[in-house]
């Protein structure tokens, strides 16, 4: 019972923050609302007993969203939000697309028979240990590919962003 209530409450918090992301005109508040949505998702992971993933989500999103806030202040025209600039285009199309996507997914959720739900999950200590074993034995190729992808992305982002020196 407590699990349903926690997941529902933090899910509504995440939805609220998600709406605030696109409705506020202050850029920093927008980025920090996205952080609030991601943190609420992290707490939902903790409520669904995926402890390692929840803690990892909370940790990564704090750094990522603050850096996103700084980039917004760098690149947006009106970071404080006091000028009430117009920032959207394709208004009816975007609302239609968003609503269609949401309703399609809701129909899928309610109409598919997901089968019997399992009552209990492994305890967190076992989960951390078994996730490590899985990472190192069966999903080793995925792990290594992810590592190489991270390295490639770091090099690519640095190369793209370096300013050229005109000799």
């Amino acid at each position: 019972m407590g699990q349903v209530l926690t997941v529902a409450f933090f899910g509504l918090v995440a939805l609220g923050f998600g709406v605030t992301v696109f409705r506020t005109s202050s850029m920093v508040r927008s980025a920090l609302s996205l952080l609030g949505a991601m943190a609420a998702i992290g707490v939902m992971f903790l409520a669904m007993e995926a402890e390692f993933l929840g803690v990892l989500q909370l940790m990564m999103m704090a750094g990522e969203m603050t850096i996103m806030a700084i980039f917004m202040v760098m690149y947006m025209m009106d970071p404080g939000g006091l000028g009430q600039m117009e920032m959207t285009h394709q208004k009816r199309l975007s609302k239609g697309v968003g609503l269609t996507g949401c309703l399609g997914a809701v129909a899928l959720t309610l109409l598919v028979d997901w089968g019997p739900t399992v009552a209990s999950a492994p305890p967190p200590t076992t989960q951390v240990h078994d996730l490590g074993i899985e990472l190192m034995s069966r999903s080793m190729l995925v792990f290594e590919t992810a590592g190489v992808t991270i390295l490639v992305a770091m090099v690519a982002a640095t190369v793209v962003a370096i300013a050229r020196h005109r000799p």
Partner: protein
Amino acid sequence: MTVLWLVPLLVVGTYIIVVLEEWVTTGRFRPVAPVFGGISLLGRESLVPRLPDRVLFEAAPGLLLVAPVLALAVLPLAPGTIIANLATGALFLNAALAYVMVALFMAGWGANSVYGLVGGWRFLGQFVAYSMLIVMPITAVAMRAQSLATTTIVESQTSLWNVIAQPLGFILFWLAAMAVCFLPPFDLPIAPHELAGGIMGEYTGDRLAILRLARLVLILTLSASVTIFFLGGWLGPVLPPWIWTLVKTLLVAAAMLGTGRFVPRLRQEQLVAWGWQFGIPLALTNILWVGVTLLVVA
């Protein structure tokens, strides 16, 4: 029940660290000074700057206080005395300390002042420098303990403390811990003589009291984490375990407060360059060293 002993312990611990800080930095030992200082600070007028971002301005001191208290919840005082013995305790400590960055960013932006903004932005550069140096020594410590739970990490040091088994990791974690609680020489967001107080410059009255209290709790939390991860936590010969934890934490805090003042403040680009060009290869060497010793010795 176990939450109740945390509050008086925090109050006593932060009181001792305030007295320690003044003793170590100025040489004067005045045990009653924090009481008068706190009363005078709370009695002052609480100004709000012109056109602040009100939500962020008010929320920043609170978040800076909540983050280290959450981190303290996973650190054990004695073998059975811990508030939340999470299976991923070491990682949760890291996650809670990441919100220190968010709080300082909010304080810098919310006050609508140039010096605060520059202080907050420079702390982002410091965060980029120290974030890897915090995580990698914790990884090496967790490798030795074969678990991320903080009680298991202390119990794995029964034979040999991690400061002797992984000295490189200890030095890197010490420096990164000083950078997290923005003590000199890593005090870019505060910068007393350069940025006119930085992020703390626009706060007055009771909000400044909360901000200063949060900084002290942060120092206490990081000293406790250095003790737990590297100095053997509650392990010691004669005294009861919780006294050993407190003594070691306060010694680490005194050392952190006293040693950094003699080094000039590092600029943000120097900090990032040193952190990434020297710190990360050394941290990876530390992980390699720990892996080799674990496979050879065990």
